[in-house]
């Protein structure tokens, strides 16, 4: 086994363990902590898959931003008595059964597809892969510059044969602005009706 495989096994275990404990935990803050472990391990998996920019974004936006937002939500919406809202055991068993069924279907699908054959077909229709060049070796993941260029509409990795992402990028930026304003509008403090009367 190479060191990559050891690291992959470790982070895969952490990812799955975190996800399962999100499901099992009843306390919301512990759920959030398990989610942090799971998402941080996913960012490590991204690094192992040589997607360094995506991994860094995952850490920055997801773990450092979204989860902190969720924990703030937990703090703002729960007095300590309501922190644990239990699900009934029957629901739990039903969900576990459906989950196992789902998982078996997915695993069966994943292992029954011959990826190599599809890959050969796919390689026929897409352009040749030009390895991006930057300060690091290509194998250690240098996705920053090609990603930035694809966001302004250039595709160095496809030798210009694939579309860039300028329009989606602009749409997402406008979307974020709208969401920012909308969320601030929704979350502003309103007096309760009972308090007024």
């Amino acid at each position, binding site marked *: 086994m190479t060191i990559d495989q050891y690291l*992959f096994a470790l982070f895969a275990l952490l*990812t799955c363990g975190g996800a399962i404990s999100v499901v099992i935990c009843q306390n919301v803050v512990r*759920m959030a902590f398990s989610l942090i472990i799971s998402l941080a391990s*996913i960012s490590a998996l991204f690094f192992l898959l040589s997607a360094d920019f*995506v991994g860094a974004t995952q850490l920055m936006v997801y773990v450092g931003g979204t989860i902190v937002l969720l924990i703030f939500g937990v703090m703002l919406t729960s007095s300590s008595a309501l922190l644990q809202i239990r699900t009934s055991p029957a629901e739990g068993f039903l969900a576990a059964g*459906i989950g196992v069924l789902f998982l078996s279907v997915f695993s069966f699908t994943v292992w029954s597809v011959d990826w190599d054959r599809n890959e050969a077909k796919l390689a026929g229709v*897409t352009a040749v892969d030009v390895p991006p060049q930057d300060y690091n070796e290509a194998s250690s993941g240098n996705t920053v510059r090609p990603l930035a260029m694809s966001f302004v509409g250039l595709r160095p990795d496809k030798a210009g044969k694939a579309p860039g992402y300028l329009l989606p990028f602009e749409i997402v930026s406008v979307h974020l602005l709208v969401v920012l304003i909308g969320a601030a509008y929704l979350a502003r403090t309103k007096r309760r009706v009972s308090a007024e009367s």
Partner: protein
Amino acid sequence: MDAIGLNNVLAIGAVLFVCGVICMTTKRNGIGVLMGVELVLNGANLNFVAFARYSSMGLDGHVISLFVIVLAAAEAAVALAIALNFYNNHLTIDVDRGDELRG
């Protein structure tokens, strides 16, 4: 190079997805449901990055997963605002109590 293998990564993605779905269906806490959504999105993200790594799709997978991360952050912000409003109206975050369908 192929030390990890596509199938293993896809399997992790499947586990995340299933955990997320179970979380969304069973949790009665609104924030817990949101966490389930995050897990599902991350499972999908992992698949995108894995396909970007193990196929000739190049950077498309990375770009899509970046969009997913950004949109998930936006979704969390809006959902949280809704949860706060829910809490203001019902004084609880138990989603089973939100079955009135009126103001």
